[in-house]
C-alpha cells in the first residue's frame, strides 16, 4: 500500500519559491543583526549617561570644595594682587599650586565630564539609528 501511495505522491508538483527570496532572507537577518547592535549601544549609552549625569555634578562639587580647602585660591589671589612678588617667586608659587591641587577630585570630575560628553556625542552620531530603533521596535510587534 505504501509504495502505491508513494508512487502517487511522486506526481505532486512542488511550488518554486520566488527568485529573490534568499537575498531577502539574508537582508532581513542583516537588519536583525543591526537592530541587536543598536539595542546594545542604546543600553550601554543609557547606563553611561545616567551614571555620568549623577557623577558629574557630584564630582564638580567635591572638586570645588577641595579647591577651597587646598588654599590654591590664596595663591591665585596673591598672584593677581602682587604680581611683582609672583613673578619673582613664580617657581615656588607654581610648585605650591601644583602640590595643593586636588588631583583626584580634578581627575574624577574631568573623567565623568568626558563620559557625559561621550555619551551625548554617541547619541547625536547615532541619533537617527537609535530613534528608528525605538520607534520601529514598537512597530515590529505588529508585524508577523
Amino acid at each position: 500500500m505504501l509504495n502505491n501511495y508513494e508512487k502517487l505522491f511522486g506526481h505532486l508538483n512542488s511550488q518554486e519559491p520566488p527568485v529573490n527570496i534568499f537575498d531577502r532572507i539574508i537582508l532581513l537577518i542583516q537588519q536583525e543583526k543591526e537592530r541587536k547592535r543598536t539595542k546594545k549601544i542604546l543600553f550601554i549609552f543609557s547606563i553611561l549617561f545616567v551614571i555620568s549625569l549623577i557623577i558629574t555634578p557630584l564630582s564638580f562639587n567635591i572638586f570645588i570644595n577641595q579647591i577651597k580647602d587646598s588654599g590654591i585660591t590664596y595663591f591665585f589671589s596673591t598672584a593677581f594682587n602682587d604680581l611683582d612678588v609672583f613673578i619673582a617667586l613664580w617657581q615656588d608659587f607654581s610648585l605650591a599650586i601644583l602640590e595643593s591641587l586636588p588631583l583626584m577630585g580634578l581627575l574624577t570630575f574631568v573623567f565623568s565630564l568626558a563620559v557625559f560628553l561621550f555619551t551625548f556625542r554617541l547619541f547625536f552620531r547615532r541619533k537617527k539609528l537609535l530613534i528608528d530603533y525605538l520607534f520601529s521596535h514598537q512597530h515590529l510587534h505588529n508585524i508577523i
Partner: protein
Amino acid sequence: MDFSDQQLIVDYLKGDEESFKILIKRYLKPIYNFVYQYVNDPQEAQDITQEVFVRVWRYLKKFNQKKNFKTWLFQIAKNVSIDFYRKARFHGGERKNISFSDFENEKGENILTETIPDPGPLPDEILERSDIGQQLAKATKKLSLNYKNVICLYYYHHFTFQEIAEILSAPLNTVKSQHRRALSILKKILEKDFN
C-alpha cells in the same frame, strides 16, 4: 562536498557565515512548500518563509544539537504559519484558503471517517492518468490542514511518523490515524473524480 546539518551548524557557530547560507539554501524550497499549504498564496508563503529563517538564525545558538535540525526547522515553520493564520483571522482577514474540516474535532478526528477501514491500494488506472498531478493537487486541497500536513510531511518531505508527531506536537497514534484517514479520503476523492 555535502556537509551534514549538524556540521554546518557547528561551523556557523564557530563563525563561518557561509555555512548558515548553505543551510538556508538546502531547506528553502521544502519550507516554502510546507508553508504554502497553509496559505495557498505565494506572497504570504514568501513572508512566512522569510520569518521562519530569521527565527532559525535568532534561536540557532539555543538549538540542542543532539536533536534533529530538520524536525526543529519544520516545527518553527508550523508555528510561524499558525501564528500568521491566527493574526490574519484576529485582524478580520479572510482565510478562505485554509480549510479546517467542519467535521473535525480538536484532535483532528473526523467523525465521518471514524469507521473507514484501511484504505487499500489505489487502482492502477488512477495512477496511470496523465493529469494525476493536477488531480492530486486538487484532491489534497480538499483535505483538512491536519491531514494535509501529515501526508505532505510523510510522502513529500520523507519524515517518519515519530518526527511528524514532534513537528505537529501530536501523539504518535494520532498522526498514524490521521495518515490512514487522509489516504482514505484521498482515495475516495480520486476514485470519484476518475469515475
